[in-house]
């Protein structure tokens, strides 16, 4: 496989192919493309955190102008599904119906209205009379297990395969694994550290609110356009829920305004479908920002108990991580996010004698937890990397030295790779690329770790501190994630690249075009991309688990290799020589007697000579999940009188294998860091006493703005993953994982007191400072 220096398209920071169009405001998102005559679909949402619907009176609503339909749970098919955009069979419990007799969080759908305009639909929604029997909610996930209030009593709900589903106990999933005897090893360890950490729910805040649109085409098929990360899963789950065949439905993703996991689930698609199927007319549903907050999904909040057993010299002997995760009202992604909290953190410290990971995901009457960049790894990372720092402190060791003494190295493995997949067992793997030592070395240098030292008082009562954290993630889900790509040769030498992969704005359309171009030997500009259409492109599981570059990239490469071969064969035929004697360099096929350009050959192939359509398809099944790695370093300034934390500097050095497009890889890191910094310092989903959301708009829920993120300095180290397309791994999620731990560690270094509950707010800092006494 080619290496960096020899490549023409891969490794170049080409502009995204849709860049200019989007900046100019070309209509490209679902709400821009929805037919003007589409009905507006609006949900009647529960004001109660837990209730049973006794009756719904839609008469007043139906009498209002422009109202075409009102749907209740009794009008729709009753088939248990999960809304989670995952493979089949889904590793999430099927605990949802299109509409149900129960509502399980404030904002849960109670009924659906379709009207000519949005205003009419919202007026009608307000006029629908729902009689509720209000039930006690379960608002504290630490009391959910075996709570007398059972949130999911429905008989039809089930797990697809054993995931520890015990709804009678309010348990959505449970899992445990161990290697060796953790308790015994801990018992004989020289030093033992036990700590408890909490991570909070976080909102994705993709700037485009969720949006879906449906219509019937001339063949009578249901077409769905959706701001989604997973068109195929949406199609399959819609078919199941609506009791239709998959072949009757088409799902297409246009441009979408960000996802981050928030769109790895069904949202409005089923409701639009109800309206379209009933009326025959197009229908659309555009979520308000408030609905995005209340009725899509958040990150799973977790309680993490870490136990570390170590020698006095810092050699780790045992790690025990026990987790309680809050999946909210429904169980989408409950098991898999939970497992990743261990699967994509613990292997970092692979030399321990014993390791144990386990716990449960419980139901509560809150906004459902779901997929969110990092997907458990960021929660696990916060706990593990905080605990390691606390251990370093007890041992009087530099936190970096403690990591270096224990971290995984290239050529090594961890038993956890084989034991833990995502929902199922994993795959054994030798780590073939791991540049953590380089990441650490470079990061230390950039932040000034040695020169500055862990803390300094820069003004009376104002302290600066340095903290760090390592992280890993994965690249695709082994044995499960499959991607496919098709290349079609056009007259005069361009290609259509048809991919199932879903570009969320990440630029994967461009990256995959670069891979195709590199393999074919043509300029990226000759590749025309069309993507994410269940009718017109081949299959792809979708944009999650950091799979697109690694898995879809391989599929593209395979299709391109096949295309190269076919071009060679046709060129040889045209030249009248044996293929074995011909070569193709991207521009022309050359034989002993002469040459023919691709341009000419492709025209002949459609119009004049040996006519045929060259079209090749590649599929790739993810076989292993080589982790990207990073080392991150944070410098904070803490005002000890107010607890205010200012992030002064953040350095991140990433090993993502070969970067197909370095600019796009870096912006993934920078964007991920900003989101992680938001989780570390400011973002908080806050509920009121009755379970309603107090943070339900962007005035009350604050994401980082321009002046909040200081110089982020992100760099990629040179790395090559032999199993990846052109040496690539992944970069979509790794960027978000480190800030909570790195910043909490930096604050602890600065003021000698530690916050173990995210976000690290000034109020919490002041509290731990008072408890600890003033900084020495």
């Amino acid at each position, binding site marked *: 496989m080619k290496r960096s220096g020899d490549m023409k398209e891969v490794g170049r920071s080409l502009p995204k192919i849709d*860049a200019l169009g989007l900046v100019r405001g070309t209509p490209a998102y679902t709400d821009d493309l929805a037919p003007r005559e589409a009905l507006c679909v609006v949900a009647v949402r529960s004001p109660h955190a837990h209730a049973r619907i006794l009756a719904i009176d839609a008469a007043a609503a139906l009498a209002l102008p422009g109202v075409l339909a009102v749907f209740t749970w009794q009008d729709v098919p009753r088939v248990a599904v999960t809304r989670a955009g995952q493979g089949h069979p889904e590793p999430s419990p099927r605990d949802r119906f299109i509409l149900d007799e129960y509502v399980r969080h404030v904002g849960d759908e109670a009924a659906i209205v379709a009207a000519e305009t949005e205003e009419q639909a919202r007026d009608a929604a307000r006029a629908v009379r729902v009689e509720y029997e209000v039930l006690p909610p379960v608002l504290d996930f630490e009391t959910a297990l075996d709570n007398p209030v059972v949130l999911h009593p429905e008989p039809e709900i089930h797990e697809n395969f054993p995931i520890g589903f015990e709804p009678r106990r309010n348990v959505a999933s449970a899992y445990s694994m161990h290697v060796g005897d953790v308790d015994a090893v801990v018992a004989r360890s020289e030093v033992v550290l036990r700590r408890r950490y909490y991570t909070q729910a976080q909102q994705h805040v993709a*700037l*485009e609110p969720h949006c879906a649109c449906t219509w019937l085409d001339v063949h009578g098929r249901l077409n769905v356009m959706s701001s989604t990360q997973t068109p195929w899963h949406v199609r399959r789950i819609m078919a199941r829920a609506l009791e239709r065949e998959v072949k009757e439905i088409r799902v297409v993703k246009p441009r979408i305004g*960000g996802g981050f996991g928030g769109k790895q689930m069904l949202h409005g698609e089923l409701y639009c479908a109800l309206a379209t199927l009933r009326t025959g007319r197009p229908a659309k549903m555009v979520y308000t920002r408030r609905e995005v907050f209340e009725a899509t999904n958040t990150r799973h909040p977790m309680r993490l108990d870490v136990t570390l057993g170590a020698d006095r010299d810092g050699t780790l002997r045992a790690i025990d991580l026990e987790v309680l995760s809050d999946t909210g009202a429904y169980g989408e992604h409950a098991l898999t996010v939970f497992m990743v909290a261990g699967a994509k953190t613990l292997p970092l410290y692979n030399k321990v004698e014993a390791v144990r990971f386990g716990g449960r995901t419980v139901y509560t009457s809150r906004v459902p937890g779901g997929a969110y960049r990092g997907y458990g790894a960021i929660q696990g990372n916060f706990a593990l990397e905080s605990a390691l720092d606390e251990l370093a402190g007890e041992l009087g060791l530099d936190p970096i030295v403690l990591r270096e003494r224990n971290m995984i190295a290239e050529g090594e493995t961890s038993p956890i790779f084989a034991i833990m997949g995502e929902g199922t067992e994993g795959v054994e793997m030798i780590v073939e690329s791991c540049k953590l030592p380089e990441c650490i070395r470079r990061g230390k240098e950039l932040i000034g770790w040695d020169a500055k030292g862990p803390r300094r008082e820069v003004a009376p009562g104002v302290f600066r501190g340095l903290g760090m954290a390592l992280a890993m993630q994965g690249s695709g889900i082994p044995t499960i994630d499959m991607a496919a790509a098709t290349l079609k040769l056009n007259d005069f030498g361009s290609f259509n690249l048809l991919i199932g992969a879903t570009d969320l704005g990440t630029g994967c359309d461009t990256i995959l075009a670069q891979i195709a171009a590199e393999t074919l030997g043509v300029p990226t500009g000759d590749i025309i991309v069309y993507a994410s259409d269940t009718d017109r492109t081949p299959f792809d599981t979708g944009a999650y688990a950091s799979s697109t570059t690694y898995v879809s990239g391989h599929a593209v490469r395979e299709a391109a290799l096949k295309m190269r071969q076919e071009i060679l064969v046709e060129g040889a035929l045209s030249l009248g020589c044996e293929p074995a004697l011909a070569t193709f360099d991207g521009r022309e096929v050359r034989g002993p007697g002469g040459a023919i350009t691709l341009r000419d050959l492709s025209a002949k192939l459609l119009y004049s000579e040996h006519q045929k359509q060259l079209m090749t398809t590649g599929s790739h099944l993810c076989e292993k999940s080589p982790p990207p790695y990073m080392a991150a370093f944070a410098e904070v300034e803490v005002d000890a009188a107010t607890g205010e934390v200012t992030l002064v500097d953040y350095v991140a050095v990433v090993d993502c294998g070969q970067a197909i497009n370095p600019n796009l890889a870096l*912006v993934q890191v920078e964007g991920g860091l900003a989101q992680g910094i938001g989780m570390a310092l400011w973002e908080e989903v806050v509920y009121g006493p009755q379970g309603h959301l107090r943070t339900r708009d962007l005035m009350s829920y604050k994401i980082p703005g*321009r002046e909040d993120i200081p110089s982020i300095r992100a760099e990629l180290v040179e790395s090559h993953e032999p199993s990846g397309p052109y040496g690539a791994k992944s970069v979509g999620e790794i960027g978000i994982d480190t800030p909570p731990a790195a910043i909490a560690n930096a604050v602890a270094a600065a003021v000698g007191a530690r916050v173990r509950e995210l976000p690290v707010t000034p109020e919490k800092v002041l509290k731990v400072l008072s408890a600890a006494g003033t900084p020495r």
Partner: protein
Amino acid sequence: MNISLELNGRPATWDVEPGEALLDALRRHGVLSVKRGCDTASCGTCTVLLDGVPVPSCAVPAPRADGRAVTTVEGLPDEAVRLGACLAAEGADQCGFCAPGLVVAVVAMSRELEDPDEAAINHYLAGNLCRCGGYVSQTRAIRRYLQEAR
């Protein structure tokens, strides 16, 4: 009610609802670059110029545009192309949802501030949120755009 305005340099007569936001009136009339990203004038994706002044169109009553000039990115084609090229060159453009509002705000900034440094740029654009990119590459692109414009 009827209003007369100048939209991107051309006269227009619209029938708008008294309580309608300018954002909705614009989108209804096919100006789709302006986006609704939030409910609270917090995100900047609906930024337009009203008589040259950058405002959140979601919070301006449509009737207030009567007798005024409204400019959206469709009316700033040269600036959009140039800033777009800078964003693309820095890899700063991702999902694109914040981009049209950003172009409008950057144009307003370039007319209001002379040679802003990074702090001034970030302060002026503080009302234009981006969730994808982490801001640093966007800032580089904007500085490049301002430099090239001089």
